[in-house]
């Protein structure tokens, strides 16, 4: 079973490059990895989380000498996939692509949640982070945060603002913006960033809080206008876009993606995985790939990552409670 390539039609067709079909299957010492590794992605194929997983899976399987197969288990704000990992054996063969939604926001959104983010998981390595960005329709007349504030005050029910969905970090940013502006923003949730962006392009919604990766091509093309980057500093890819903080709004939200496993993994396995992920993240081509997507490859020690997740929980709890979003 430890082949990366499909054994079927494709492998035989000769279209597959040799480098993909057979990574050296050197069995590692200490029994890890013992057969293929299942990387559970708690979102549907094609989304940004799925992309991060696929970008990291191929180099990781080369480094570990075992196939890393991606298993998409979407559902319930990424909690279905997280539960699947929580319940599997802590031998390092089943891993989770952890992220801000399932590990930092969902715990406050789902009061009946069956896992504890710190107690039930081993957080192994950070992979990448990316900021959020506020974008506006080109013909909306909105250019800066001052315009946003003006339109918001003038509208009885607040300005309309789209997001990729309830419970996303972008939604939380909208809630925080409403707090800063003194009255709630009229949040228009969509099913994913694509439909939300369509509505902004068409002028149905003037403003959107989006993760940078899904906005990159539109910003480059100039089909939407950037209002501000929700990050502490300007982004290297778009040095001309001012931050929200520069405009007097202390709003920042960084989406993150990491590697986690069930609780009780052996320190040696955690160490090995962290080392391999860190060395992959130091490769220039991987860094470039993440940068093109609007993200930053970010290596961390396992203990640092563990601490990072803890701080994220402290940060998002009050925001989610203030948002009033709750899943019974």
């Amino acid at each position, binding site marked *: 079973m430890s082949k990366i390539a499909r054994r*079927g*039609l494709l492998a035989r067709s000769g279209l597959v490059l040799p480098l993909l079909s057979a990574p050296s299957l050197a069995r590692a010492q200490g029994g890890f990895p013992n057969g293929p590794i299942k990387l559970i992605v708690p979102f549907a194929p094609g989304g940004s989380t799925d992309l991060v997983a696929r970008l990291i899976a191929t180099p990781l399987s080369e480094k570990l000498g075992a196939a890393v197969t991606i*298993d998409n288990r979407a559902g319930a704000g990424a909690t279905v996939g997280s539960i699947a990992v929580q319940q599997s054996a802590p031998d390092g063969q089943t891993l989770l692509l952890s992220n801000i939604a399932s590990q930092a926001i969902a715990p406050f959104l789902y009061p009946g949640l069956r896992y504890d983010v710190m107690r039930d998981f081993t957080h192994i390595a950070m992979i990448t982070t990316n900021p959020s960005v506020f974008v506006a329709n080109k013909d909306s007349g909105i250019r800066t945060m001052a315009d946003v504030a003006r339109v918001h005050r003038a509208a009885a029910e607040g300005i309309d603002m789209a997001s990729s969905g309830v419970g996303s970090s972008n939604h939380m940013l909208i809630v925080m913006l409403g707090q800063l502006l003194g009255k709630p923003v009229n949040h228009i949730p969509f099913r994913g960033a694509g439909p939300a962006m369509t509505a902004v392009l068409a002028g149905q919604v003037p403003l959107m809080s989006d993760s940078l990766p899904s906005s990159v091509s539109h910003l480059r093309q100039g089909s939407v206008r950037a209002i501000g980057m929700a990050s502490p500093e300007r982004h290297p890819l778009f040095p001309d876009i001012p931050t929200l903080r520069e405009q007097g709004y202390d709003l920042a939200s960084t989406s993150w993606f990491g590697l986690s496993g069930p609780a009780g993994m052996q320190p040696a396995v955690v160490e090995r995985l962290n080392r391999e992920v860190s060395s992959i993240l130091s490769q220039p081509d991987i860094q470039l790939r993440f940068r093109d997507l609007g993200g930053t490859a970010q290596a961390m020690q396992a203990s640092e990552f563990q601490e990072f997740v803890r701080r994220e929980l402290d940060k998002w709890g009050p925001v989610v409670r203030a948002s009033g979003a709750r899943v*019974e």
Partner: protein
Amino acid sequence: MKINQRDIASGVFFIVLAAIGLWLNTEHTMGSARRMGPGYMPWLVFWLQIALGVGVVLVGTASGPEKMDRWKADEIGTFIGGIVAGFAAWWLLHSLGGYFAIGYNSLGCGILVGFLVLSIAPGWRFLGMIMVSMAIFALLLEQFGFFAALIGLIVASCLPEREHTSKPLGVLLCTLFLLALCWFVFIYELDIRVNLWPTG
């Protein structure tokens, strides 16, 4: 009399389903027309369904005459017995733990027992046994592997068919052929993620 029993039963079915829905929906907030809550749309849908149900019943009083097949005594008995036995098995087995506490295994056993009881009546046999065979597949697949699950499914689904029970050799050949075909299609070609053999 022009009563159409089928239409009346359908209408009653719509109404009952909608009434259950409305009852469940009471836990969802309605919200306002501007900011509709989670309960707004269900409320609209279920009331519409009740109205349509009433409409179907009214039409049914005039669109007949049409009668439903009358249920025999054994069919009524196994129907009720199946439901009772199914729920009892589900509940009892779940408290046993072990294999039954994994995933949906106790639910599957409930379904299995319920439909086995149902298929005692000859009139329900095909329905009961086809569902039993699929439940067997689901129960065996993850813990006992792909091949065991397929054998269980094929054999159980062949049991109610008289042409098969008189010629068990045909069932055997059919099973072997399907095992080979499914291995080739799903495991060799598509490589779906599933255990082939029982796991410890």
